[in-house]
């Protein structure tokens, strides 16, 4: 039952991600991308990560995609008149398929290490997923968390300068 559900959602994810690449109108691409994000949120729930699923929907499908669609509307981008030259499309597709082949090949050759941590499903249910992530974020990953705030500040300042100055 679970594998059938996985296959259906995976098929939807792959089809909508192909639509992102092939649609001529950027708005259709953006809406397909939202569909892909929702499918990925479903997988996060299947992998016992409900908080990451909620964050995926709120941050990616909510905030970032709204920003992208806003910019598409603001710039009034028309549908692409012509694609790139057929050489570029061919070379790009070959490179992408080669990357896929390589990944699947290494995946089929490799084997898992026996390493295991302490987190399991019972712990997620009893302690709570948010609490587990919060504890990791504020103990082991405190320095990266603080650096994240500097990164966001730099991004805000950069966006304001780009929007304000006459470039």
């Amino acid at each position, binding site marked *: 039952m*679970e*594998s059938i559900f*996985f296959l259906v959602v995976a098929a939807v*994810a792959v089809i909508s*991600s192909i639509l*992102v*690449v092939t649609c001529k109108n*950027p708005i259709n*691409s953006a809406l397909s*991308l939202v569909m*892909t994000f929702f499918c*990925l949120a479903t*997988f*996060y729930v299947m*992998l016992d*990560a409900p908080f*990451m699923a909620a*964050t*995926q929907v709120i*941050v*990616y499908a909510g*905030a*970032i995609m709204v*920003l*992208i669609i806003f*910019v*598409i509307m*603001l*710039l009034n*981008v028309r549908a*692409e008149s012509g*694609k*790139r030259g057929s050489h570029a*499309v061919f070379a*790009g597709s070959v*490179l*992408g*398929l080669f*990357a896929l082949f390589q990944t699947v090949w290494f*995946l089929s050759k490799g084997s*898992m290490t026996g390493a*295991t*941590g*302490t*987190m399991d499903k019972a712990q997620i249910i009893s302690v709570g997923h948010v609490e*587990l*992530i919060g504890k*990791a*974020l504020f103990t*082991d990953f405190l320095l990266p968390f603080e650096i*994240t705030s500097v*990164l*966001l500040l*730099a*991004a*805000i300042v*950069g*966006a304001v300068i*780009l*929007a304000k100055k006459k470039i």
Partner: protein
Amino acid sequence: MLAIENYLILSAILFSIGTIGVLTRRNAIVIFMCIEMMLNAVNLTFIAFSRHLGNIDGQVFVFFVMTVAAAEAAVGLALMIAFFKNRESIDVEDINLMKL
């Protein structure tokens, strides 16, 4: 529970589709969206490994990837608007100021 290979292969497929999009499209916003898709494919790998290895660290990294994606969206879209104001286009083939 499904084997981790299913999630890894799905993630590889999504990443490759994103790569093809970045290499073949001309519209800068579509290229941007394909980059977001590649980041999401990597996030799926992180969470699958986190579940498989019983370690929460992968999910914390997903958190950081989302932060970087948000910062990238803010700056990248501001750059595109600035470019559009000058050139009336966001075709990547028009971005050639540095060309000799």
